[in-house]
């Protein structure tokens, strides 16, 4: 997945433009994430800079950092489908359902407004994410229900036990 992402990212770029992004990609391929981050931060174009930093942080395994940058970039550039895509992907990896929900919604809206070829691609991507998000949300809802159930059963059992204790004590068991 990450390999395909790298290739897609590289192919997306026109040569000799966005030199900071290209330098970041080259540095990541060379295994130098620090240099890649420097190159990404040196990118002139603001949108591309956000994308580059997300890419570097994600490749380096700093998922929280990558998500924070994707969030920041999405706020500044809400119509960038790539950033929304990364936002969903990383949020799902980190199991942050609310972030993923917001990002999937944004991706779906962008897909609706996109050109024909782009629309199909992003719509299919969003559908896949939506299914994954649904499963995550189901698990988290089940967890919350289980927690409430545990508390109620515990309280009920304790009340019943206390009632029995008091009842036996009052009836002269002691």
């Amino acid at each position: 997945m990450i390999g395909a992402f790298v290739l897609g990212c590289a192919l997306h770029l026109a040569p000799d433009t966005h030199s900071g992004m290209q330098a970041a990609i080259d540095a990541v391929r060379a295994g130098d994430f620090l240099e890649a981050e420097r190159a990404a931060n040196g990118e002139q174009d603001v949108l591309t800079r956000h994308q580059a930093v997300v890419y570097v942080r994600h490749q380096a395994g700093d998922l929280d950092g990558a998500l924070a940058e994707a969030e920041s970039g999405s706020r500044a550039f809400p119509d960038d489908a790539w950033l929304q895509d990364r936002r969903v992907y990383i949020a799902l990896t980190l199991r942050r359902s609310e972030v993923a929900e917001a990002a999937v919604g944004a991706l779906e809206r962008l897909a609706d407004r996109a050109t024909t070829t782009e629309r199909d691609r992003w719509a299919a991507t969003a559908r896949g994410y939506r299914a994954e998000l649904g499963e995550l949300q189901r698990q988290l809802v089940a967890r919350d229900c289980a927690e409430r159930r545990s508390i109620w059963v515990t309280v009920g059992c304790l009340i019943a036990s206390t009632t029995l204790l008091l009842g036996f004590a009052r009836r002269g068991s002691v």
Partner: protein
Amino acid sequence: MAGDAPSAESAQPGQRFGAVIVLGVAGASGACTMAVELAAVRLLAPWFGTSTAVWTNVIGVILLALSVGYLLGARLSRVTSPQRVLALVLLVAAGLAAWLPGVAHIVAAWFLPEGLTLDEAARLLPWGSLATALVLFLPSTLLLGCVAPLSTEILQRSNRSSAGRAGGAVLCVSTLGSLAGTFGTTYFAVPELGLTRTFLVAGAILFALACLILLAPRTGAASHPSIAIVAALPFLSALLLARAPAPHAKHDMTLLEARESTYQSVRVVESGSGADRLRFLQVNESFDSFQSVWQERVGFLPDGFYYNYFAMPLWWSRDVTHWRVAVIGLGAGTALRVLDGAHPGGTTIESTGAEIDPVVVELARRWLDLGADAPGHRVLAGVDGRAALHSISGQLDLIVLDAYANQMEIPAHLSTREMFSEARAKLAPGGWLVSNVGGFSLEDPVVVAVARTLAASFEQRVIAVRVPFSRNCVLYARNRAELPVPRSPGWRVGSPEVDRKLSAVELSGTWAWFEPSARDSLTDDLNCIEALQRRSILAASEHARAKDSR
């Protein structure tokens, strides 16, 4: 009137009852009570683990049930034939105990749904384990609590003795039985018989005791056989039907072997195929976690495994060509496999690994290529890590500390100033201590506490790096020598594969220094690591929620 206790002077011959039998019943019931209690925690372990919180919940439920049972037993002891009541109580308790393995997974699933990660489930563990323990263990233990007062009443009537004498005798024998049950369950029943058979044996003993009472002559206990037969049905059905589900792997993995040890449930699972095969050794509930990992070749593991960062000192200190290494918390030997394959050329390693659970070592030798004891590669199985450190003679160049209990708990005695000072005393000048600490960030309360304690013991700052693609941090401390500094000469080592991993933790926010702080140190006397671990889970979920809502 029915229910009034006859006076000692007017005790009918039919109510005479051998003191030996009733004391035997009390003793055996005590043993079964402890068997249920100790096996209870292990029964819950596949879902809730065996943390201190789970133990506290189970013990609390048992004590509550016993207290209610004592009063109920006192109430029931006023009947004309307490022997009959005792037999019925034992019959029902036998059935309830025998059915526990067969229904535990159903009840546990109500309170702990599948698919959660370790940190997501952590919130559920205290409440879920308490609710599960109440549903599963309250009824049977409550009935077992009735045995002591009923036995006392029977003994007092049949022997015409004083309440104190009868009560003291019952308590004495019951407690001795509990003692036998405690040791027998831990050291024999659970490891040798397994959990299902342990509960069935406890149920069978209670059933046999009930039959003994019913069939003993001139007790009057057998005058209503139909009631006894109905009460016996749960146990008899449990013999045929009550079975815990077979161990199984989760998350599209293949189960290779599962065993019960004195400490935990252990299993080896496999994922992938061919050269990409990975095997994991998991304990108890595991969730998305693992205790050890194996791949076919030695050396670095794929990204996301913190063990890779244990090898860095071998590169940073390349002037050392022969390394004496101790691994505290060896598990299945993952750390050693990484070191053995990921060191600079010309380096030799002599190792001693300590793993407290011998079953882990046994499975590791069978499935995860942990070698047999050999000169230069010792495995101390069944030895606590701190005790193992004491036993190692000579100086060490590297101590790897990777000891965890119950999935995510650092044992308190392995996270203190005294422990780290003892470790430092074993290190040669310039020697390293590397520790894995599970934590959600570099601000995680557990990471901060352990790092500051380590720094205080080594009397200099330590560095923590956040392992990429993981929930782990690795701490580095050095004995009377400088640590390498990220983004400075000396951090990278000239090997592309190693430098790639090192550069990933040079990014801002992925590493941090921790200064010595005596005030914030954990000590043997005062160690709040468990509270910190609870705070860590809470902080992580609140932090995520706060970020999500922005």
